[in-house]
């Protein structure tokens, strides 16, 4: 660690220069005052690091990376951070809160190991069986059972194919490698006028003595608040998620769906309980997982549900759609119209005749 005295610069010729590698700046050199817990120095230093910008020729390296993935064995999509992202806060830095950045380029990155770990955890919790309950339908999604540091029960069939399995014992199947590769999700180079890569963040500990003593001292109202500032990845940054599986398109798409779901609903990295790490897929997926909730759409949905509850015939329902809704829906915005199409597909099932044709025509007009 390079410790800089008050007013000293790492590069004295260019005072106040922003390090061109944010990760190097954050982990290898810091003003001495930061270690001495001077909040003003800490703020100045972190503000300086948030000014880090895209390195020269990074966009070339990114393009090279992106173009190296082609063909049916790979699945790429871009995710956008809806909130701050904090991966690797346990690693060392002068602030005591770390941040994982790309080692060579110093830009934010979502490590492949984090993506894989999150997805595995998501799949076994959401799709797998409840602990202690045998459910044949959910059995394929069971995760590996561990007892301390030893695996004690092999995972289910689907889980094993997605994430692999360790050797358990002589009775069960041998260990195997997961069929899906979770690559590091590289940071997508910023467009003109887009926001910063990194942002300063603050967490305020109110009962420091209580936490530090492990509960031996009582938390009381007159403890001083203790702001701790650190760096996080700013919201709005985008990442290229790349998955790869040789000759297994269906498995690959399934994995892609799980990654999307997990990133959106659970979030990646640390402090997800406080809303950190939510990333939303920008490439429209096969089933749009985000549901629009505008007044017009809500009304349409309620109306369709009512019709269904009252057992109105499909043909009759469609005639009412044509009379009451068609004009109104055509005046809506594009995303709303897409959502309306989704709703119609869900609720209306016209099997033959004139109505079916008119229904398809209406959907085409909505899509145009």
């Amino acid at each position: 660690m390079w410790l800089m005295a008050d007013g000293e610069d790492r590069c004295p010729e260019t005072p106040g220069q922003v390090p061109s590698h944010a990760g190097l700046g954050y982990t290898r050199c810091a003003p001495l005052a930061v270690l001495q817990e001077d909040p003003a120095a800490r703020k100045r230093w972190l503000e300086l690091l948030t000014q880090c910008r895209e390195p020269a020729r990074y966009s070339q390296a990114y393009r090279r990376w992106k173009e190296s993935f082609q063909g049916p064995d790979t699945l790429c999509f871009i995710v956008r951070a809806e909130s701050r992202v904090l991966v690797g806060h346990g690693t060392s830095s002068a602030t005591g809160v770390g941040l994982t950045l790309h080692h060579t380029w110093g830009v934010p990155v979502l490590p492949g190991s984090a993506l894989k770990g999150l997805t595995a955890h998501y799949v076994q919790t959401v799709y797998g069986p409840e602990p202690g309950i045998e459910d044949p339908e959910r059995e394929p999604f069971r995760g590996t059972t561990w007892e301390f540091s030893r695996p004690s029960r092999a995972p289910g069939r689907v889980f094993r194919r997605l994430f692999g399995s360790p050797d358990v014992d002589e009775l069960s199947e041998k260990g195997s490698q997961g069929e899906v590769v979770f690559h590091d999700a590289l940071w997508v180079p910023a467009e003109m006028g887009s926001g910063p890569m990194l942002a300063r963040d603050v967490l305020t500990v109110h009962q420091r003595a209580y936490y530090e003593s492990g509960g031996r001292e009582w938390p009381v109202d007159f403890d001083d608040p203790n702001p701790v500032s650190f760096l996080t990845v700013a919201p709005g940054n985008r990442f290229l998620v790349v998955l790869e599986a040789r000759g297994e398109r269906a498995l690959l798409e399934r994995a892609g769906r799980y990654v999307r779901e997990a990133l959106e609903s659970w979030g990646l990295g640390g402090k997800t309980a406080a809303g950190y790490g939510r990333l939303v897929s920008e490439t429209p997926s096969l089933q749009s997982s985000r549901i629009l909730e505008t007044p017009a759409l809500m009304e349409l949905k309620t109306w369709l549900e009512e019709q269904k509850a009252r057992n109105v015939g499909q043909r009759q329902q469609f005639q009412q759609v044509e009379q009451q809704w068609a004009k109104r829906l055509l005046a809506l915005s594009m995303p709303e119209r897409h959502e309306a199409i989704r709703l119609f597909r869900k609720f209306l099932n016209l099997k033959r005749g004139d109505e079916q044709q008119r229904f398809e025509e209406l959907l085409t007009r909505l899509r145009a």
Partner: protein
Amino acid sequence: MSMEIRPYLLHALSPLHAGTGQSVGIIDLPIARLRATNIPFVPGSSLKGVLREARRSLPPAEWEALFGPLREVSGAAGDEAREGDHAGALVVGDARLVALPVRSFLGTFAWVSSPLLLELARRDLAGLDGLPGRMKRLPATGARVGAGSITVSPKQRRLLLEDLDLDAQVEPAVDAWARFLSRTWPEEEEGLRERFAVVDDETMSFLLETATQVETRVRIDPDTGTVVQGALWQEESLPAETLLVGVLAAGRSLRRGTELSATEVLERALKGTALLQLGGKATVGRGRCRLAAWPGVSREARP
């Protein structure tokens, strides 16, 4: 018998973990290094296995001629002479580090090499057109950079790597090396030239120890959401953008009934070779590498 030799450049697109599998040090999973010099490398056996898998689409006879027949029992136990046994025609050498990307206060990172690394590379690259001459040892701690380097400070010409400050001088040989290495990678010539630097051997051996990528990984208990007791480990890798150099060589096919010249063997081994996955931790995206042979062929007669 005449051997045909084709040196190649291995360029890591993601971190490369060619590990040893165990250690007694702080890092639980360190990378493989050459014993005498501590230079990181990818063993030829590792690369040959990957090439063997990547060439599964070849006709079986040719595949066997290139890589040799597979033993029925692996290891020493299967080492028995069999009818029609032959050696593979392809020889795969170790890929040795030639330039390590080291984080830099200016210019983000520098591709750092040293006279020793370049001298060892020169052995592998001997006979190629335009190979730069011997790089003189640096008399003291310091660095040499090319004319247009973006990693040195504007006035005092200092190279600020990790937590090391080095005085840098411009030397044309550095540019020559960057140009030579980028012949396998023409579109990146400018990028390599402005970041290529040569430091003295002592500084390099310090950087080989301290400037690799070390990640801390954990296993999280799905029931508690916290790290499992004891499931925290550190993993070392060569960072993305690392450059390594090695040699592929070939003789004619030794398989009975399969006639292939040395040139044909190399052609088949390298056909469409661009992207390979090397080393460990493949399913979390480690070891994605680009392999490119130098254009032009050198011949060597073996006594």
